[in-house]
């Protein structure tokens, strides 16, 4: 520290030189004294030392909890490592990986299991042998219908808010409220809003809708006759076919819509803020020029505003697809008390599968394998989006 004070002038020169490599060269040529080299090195040492020290916690955290965890998940996904009985510590399991591989099925046992047909243990589904994973994955993909709906709605509101009206800020705050609210509270609320005589049915005029023995449209129901809502909807009691017998498809589709409504409602505010920020960055001069050239509002929106907004929209799509694939809490909570084990498959996202096998049944290897498959899906989808993006630019 004392040395620093005495050689402060040299240091400041050095620091500037470091910031500008071009000047660095000039400075070295202009003043090639050997004596002043030492403080420069001292400063560099300080920079390197403190640079690393400031980063160390973040580096340790990221490497340990993300990279190491990911590599271990990848390695363990080939084993039958589990937490039942006398469970091994993680590191021991990794060291003895070879002994944990299933001798009959080989290392890809869980990846094969992912694509295996099997009858469900749950009573409602026992008739339908399915690949469980496709059903969970389909739920996840089905919820993505909410992404374009949310985008269009939030774009509409964002355009409204970015007009020069008073109180635009207040609206932004109000629309953002659902984003800060706890999802469990929102699920509790929506569960009752969508009841047979609830607010939603009151608005839609479905409180007198009759299906079997219950009044009011059933949004979320454990239906002994799963097709009854559709039969009542289509006014045809003789409908046959797998769609009307499998609760996953008939009642399930209706229940999934509740989650779409909920996630659109909850996510709208964040996207609106993103778009309002993007809209404020759209070049006003270009807009005015287009106006003078006789373009109407609609044309200006599509030809001037949208291309300028493209990066924001692309960012939004990428993040919401990645986030959407990881949906977990909302569908699980929505179904938890009303349907117990039977209902989970109708709504739960893919992550529930990882939880169910990895954490609940303590088949760590299986859970890890399912997790790696999810990472693969997300990686491929993201690559695909960037490929589309690069193709659009040409």
């Amino acid at each position, binding site marked *: 520290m004392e040395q620093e004070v005495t050689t402060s002038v040299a240091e400041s020169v050095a620091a500037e030189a470091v910031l500008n490599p071009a000047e660095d060269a000039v400075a070295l040529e202009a003043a090639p004294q050997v004596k002043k080299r030492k403080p420069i090195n001292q400063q560099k040492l300080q920079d390197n030392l403190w640079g690393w020290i400031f980063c160390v916690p973040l580096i340790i955290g990221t490497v340990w909890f993300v990279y190491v965890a990911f590599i271990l998940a990848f390695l363990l996904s080939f084993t039958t490592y589990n*937490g039942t009985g006398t469970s091994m510590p993680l590191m021991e399991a990794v060291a003895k990986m070879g002994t944990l591989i299933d001798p009959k099925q080989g290392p890809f046992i869980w990846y094969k299991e992912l694509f295996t047909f099997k009858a469900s243990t749950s009573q409602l589904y026992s008739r339908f042998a399915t690949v469980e994973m496709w059903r969970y994955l389909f739920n996840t993909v089905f919820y993505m219908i909410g992404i374009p709906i949310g985008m269009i709605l939030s774009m509409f509101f964002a355009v*409204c808010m970015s007009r020069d*009206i008073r109180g635009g800020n207040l609206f932004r705050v109000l629309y953002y409220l659902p984003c800060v*609210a706890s999802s469990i509270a929102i699920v509790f609320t929506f569960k009752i809003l969508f009841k047979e005589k609830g607010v939603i049915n009151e608005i839609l005029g479905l409180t007198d809708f009759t299906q079997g023995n219950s009044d009011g449209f059933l949004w979320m129901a454990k239906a002994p006759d799963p097709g009854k809502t559709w039969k009542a909807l289509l006014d045809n009691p003789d409908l046959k076919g797998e769609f009307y017998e499998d609760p996953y498809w008939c009642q399930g589709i209706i229940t999934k819509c509740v989650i779409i409504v909920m996630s659109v409602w909850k996510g709208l505010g964040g996207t609106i803020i993103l778009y309002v920020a993007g809209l404020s960055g759209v070049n006003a001069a270009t807009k005015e020029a287009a*106006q003078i050239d006789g373009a109407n509002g609609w044309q200006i929106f599509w030809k001037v505003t949208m291309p300028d907004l493209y990066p924001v929209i692309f960012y939004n799509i990428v993040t919401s697809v990645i986030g959407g694939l990881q949906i977990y809490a909302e569908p699980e909570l929505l179904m938890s008390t009303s349907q117990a084990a039977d209902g989970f498959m109708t709504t739960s996202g893919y992550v529930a599968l990882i939880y169910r096998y*990895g954490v609940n049944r303590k088949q760590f290897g299986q859970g890890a394998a399912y997790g790696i498959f999810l*990472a693969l899906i997300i*990686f491929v989808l993201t690559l695909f989006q960037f490929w589309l993006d690069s193709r659009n630019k040409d």
Partner: protein
Amino acid sequence: MENENVLNEEIVVAPEAEAEEKQQYSSLRYAWGAFVAFFGFSTRTHRASKQRAKLVQDIATYLVLLFGAFIMVYPFWWMLAGSLTSTEGADSSLLYTLIWWPERTPAGDGRSLFYNYQYFFNQALIPSNGVYLTYWRAVLNNLIYSIVPVVVGVITSASAAFSFAKIQWIGRNAVFFFLLAAVMIPGPSVMITQYVMYSDLNWQENGLVLIIPGMFGSIMTAFFIRQFLFGLPTSIIEAAKIDGAGYFRIFCQFILPLAMPAIMAQGLLSFMGCWNNYMGSFIMIPSQSEAINLPHAMFIVSTKLGENQGPNIAASVLCIIPVMILFACFQKLIIGSLMLTGSKE
């Protein structure tokens, strides 16, 4: 705007052919034109004034935005009304038909108006394995989980951000992109190994799992603070260095206060995330533990309440209120920070 007006006047004044053409329209068409012009729409017969058009458009915008705001806020109103609904016994269906205000509040039955809240405080404990978890314990847990890791984590993130933004060291960019690449690894795919790690470390029963990992900071927080620090002049740091301050002192005395808006915004956002972190507690902490957080406790209680859903809604209101108050106080900061994200990308 001015340009537009000039343009319009020109069109109106200039061609006389148009004036002749006007006479060809029927009177009905004229009436329609006048009617529509009143609402700010121009037709061939009448040209609406710009002010009128703006006024009408403003009113329409307000109507649309108010309608949207109503949809956004209504469920919260419903929650409030629901928490004041009488739901015990035969009244359980009152909540299911509630729209504006409960038909019968607990006060109507001779109980306290806030009966549902009291129910949650007094009776709905979680008896499991001899452990009695009170509501207040869950709230305390939640406070610890959302203050300690957030405060420490945001400081470690800020220190990393300072290092990435303002200090030149070998391998800086490589390390930064190495860390940023971690964002691509989805949380659920490392969930299982994390679960095993934490259970080996015995962090689950005592809740350390929701405290210690957060204290290492997060790369996204560091990324946003780094963007903010790029906007600060480097000359301040140079000056401090000349005056003999070490990097640690520079960080504590200059960077932390100067970057406070960004740090506060990121801290508040992650506080809200931790406060609402149902998944973390549900997956990592066993349900019979004393260390579960508030959303997890609410879930466990809700499975035991059956048809009497009133206390559930009351608990939801109580769970939302702290974040709402925080958001109301710091909305400018938070929304400003979010908007920065939007304009950066």
